[in-house]
C-alpha cells in the first residue's frame, strides 16, 4: 500500500482546513491536505454571506474574483413583513459585507495553503484513523480508488458538518435535535428584489430558523431557508417550505433556479474539548458555527489560523501531545467561546417564540435608532417598549 509521511494531515479542504494547512506550512510544518471531492469549493453547501471586518485579521486578502457582491447592509424582516430592522455598515460595525462565490473563495484559500508549502490530494476520502500503541498516527484513506496510508504527527479534522474524524477519535460531536438546522437553497435568477441588502425573514416561514435572500447580482440571489429539526413533521419538508415561500413571494415567483443546495448546520453550544494527543478539530467539524446566524466561515478561518500556528510550533518541537495543542484550545476559546455560549442561549430562547412575539421584537427594534447593533443593544431597545419580552433574556444584556 502507498504510504505518505508528513507532520500534519488535514482532512477536508474547506476554509477551516485550508487556513490550518496554510498557517502550519508557513511555520515550517510538512502538511498534507486531503479532500474527498474532485474539486475544492464545489458543490457549495452555503448561503455565502460573510462580514468583512475579520478577513485581514486572519491574513485573507480580498480578491474581486471571489466577491460576488458587496452589500450595504442587512434587513431583518418580521413574520408579517410589516416591520424590518436595517443593519447598515455604520450600525453593524463592519459586520455586514460580502456575498462570496465559495467556488472561488475556497480555491483561493487552498491556493494560499499550497503557496505556503502544503500538499493537496483531491478525490481522497479518509476512512479511519491509524492507531499505533494506542496513539493516533495518521489516517487511512482511499485516493482515486486506491487505498493509502497517510502517516502524520497530527490529524486535523476539518471535515465539516459531517464531523467523522472527531467521532472516530472519541470526541463527542453528536448533536441534539434542537441543535440541528436543516436547509435548502436555490441560487435563483430572474428575481425582482433589492440587490444591495442581505435579507433575513423570521417566523413560521422557516420555524426555528430563518429564510434568507443573499444577493449574487442584480437579479440573482441565494434564496434559502433553514428549519429546526424538531419542527419538521415529514420527510422532505424543508424543500417544501422553500418552494412554498418562493411561490408566494411576488419578488421571487418568476425566479428560476441555477443551482440547488442542500445541507445542515449545527447550532449547538461550544464543545468541551476539540484537542487530544495527535489530533484536533477545526471549524464546522468542531461545531464552531454561530448558533444565531448559522454562519461558520469567520470562526473557521480564525480557528484554522490559531491551529496552524500552534501546529507549526508542535512540528518544530516534534511534539503533538494534547498539552502542546492546548494553546490552540486556549486561543479559539478566547476568541469565540463566550460569544458562542451567549448566542446559543439566545437561540434556545428565540426558537420558542411564536410569530406574534417575533413581530413585536422586530417592531420594537425598528422604531429606535441604535448607534451600534449588538445582541445587547438590541435587547436593551426591546426592553424599553416591551419589558416583559426580555425578562427571560435578562442575563444576556
Amino acid at each position, binding site marked *: 500500500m502507498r504510504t505518505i509521511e508528513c507532520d500534519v494531515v488535514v482532512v477536508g479542504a474547506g476554509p477551516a482546513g485550508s487556513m490550518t494547512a496554510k498557517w502550519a506550512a508557513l511555520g515550517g510544518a510538512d502538511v498534507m491536505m486531503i479532500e*474527498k*471531492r*474532485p474539486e475544492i469549493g464545489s*458543490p457549495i*453547501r452555503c448561503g455565502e454571506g460573510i462580514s468583512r471586518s475579520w478577513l485581514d485579521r486572519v491574513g485573507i486578502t480580498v480578491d474581486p474574483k471571489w466577491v460576488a457582491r458587496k452589500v450595504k447592509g442587512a434587513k431583518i424582516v418580521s413574520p408579517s413583513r410589516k416591520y424590518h430592522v436595517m443593519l447598515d455598515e455604520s450600525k453593524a460595525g463592519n459586520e455586514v459585507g460580502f456575498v462570496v462565490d465559495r467556488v472561488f473563495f475556497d480555491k483561493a484559500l487552498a491556493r494560499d495553503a499550497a503557496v505556503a508549502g502544503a500538499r493537496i490530494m483531491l*478525490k481522497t*476520502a479518509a*476512512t479511519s484513523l491509524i492507531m499505533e500503541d494506542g496513539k493516533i498516527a495518521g489516517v487511512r484513506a*482511499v485516493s482515486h480508488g486506491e487505498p493509502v496510508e497517510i502517516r502524520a504527527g497530527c490529524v486535523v479534522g476539518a471535515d*465539516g*458538518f*459531517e*464531523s*467523522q474524524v472527531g*467521532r472516530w477519535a472519541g470526541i463527542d460531536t*453528536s*448533536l441534539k*435535535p434542537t441543535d*440541528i438546522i*436543516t*436547509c*435548502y437553497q436555490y441560487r435563483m435568477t430572474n428575481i425582482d428584489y433589492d440587490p444591495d441588502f442581505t435579507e433575513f425573514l423570521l417566523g413560521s416561514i422557516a420555524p426555528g430558523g430563518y429564510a434568507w435572500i443573499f444577493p449574487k447580482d442584480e437579479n440573482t440571489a441565494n434564496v434559502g431557508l433553514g428549519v429546526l*429539526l424538531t419542527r*419538521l413533521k*415529514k*420527510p*422532505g*419538508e*424543508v*424543500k417544501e417550505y422553500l418552494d412554498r415561500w418562493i411561490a408566494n413571494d411576488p419578488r421571487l415567483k418568476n425566479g428560476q433556479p441555477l443551482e*440547488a*443546495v*442542500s*445541507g*445542515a448546520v*449545527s447550532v449547538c453550544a461550544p464543545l468541551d474539548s476539540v484537542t487530544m494527543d495527535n489530533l484536533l478539530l477545526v471549524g464546522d467539524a468542531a461545531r464552531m458555527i454561530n448558533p444565531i446566524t448559522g454562519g461558520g466561515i469567520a470562526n473557521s478561518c480564525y480557528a484554522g489560523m490559531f491551529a496552524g500556528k500552534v501546529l507549526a510550533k508542535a512540528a518544530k518541537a516534534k511534539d503533538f501531545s494534547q498539552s502542546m495543542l492546548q494553546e490552540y484550545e486556549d486561543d479559539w476559546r478566547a476568541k469565540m467561546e463566550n460569544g458562542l455560549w451567549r448566542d446559543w442561549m439566545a437561540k434556545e430562547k428565540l426558537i420558542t417564540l411564536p410569530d406574534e412575539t417575533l413581530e413585536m421584537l422586530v417592531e420594537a427594534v425598528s422604531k429606535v435608532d441604535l448607534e451600534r447593533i449588538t445582541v445587547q443593544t438590541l435587547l436593551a431597545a426591546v426592553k424599553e417598549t416591551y419589558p416583559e419580552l426580555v425578562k427571560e433574556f435578562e442575563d444576556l444584556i
Partner: protein
Amino acid sequence: MKVSAERCHHCGACVGSCPQNAIFMNDFILDFGEACNKCGRCIKVCPVGAITREE
C-alpha cells in the same frame, strides 16, 4: 434505511446528524453501517426526503 439516488444531493446532513455515526459517505456513496438502530433521525433531517425505511 434506503437512499433514493434520484433525490439525494450528497450533502451530508444525515451523516453529521446521525446519533450512532452509522452513515458513511464518500464522494458519491452513501452507506448505512451495522451501528444503525433505525432511529429515523436521518429521514427527518434530509432536506429533500431522500431517505426511507426499508420495507
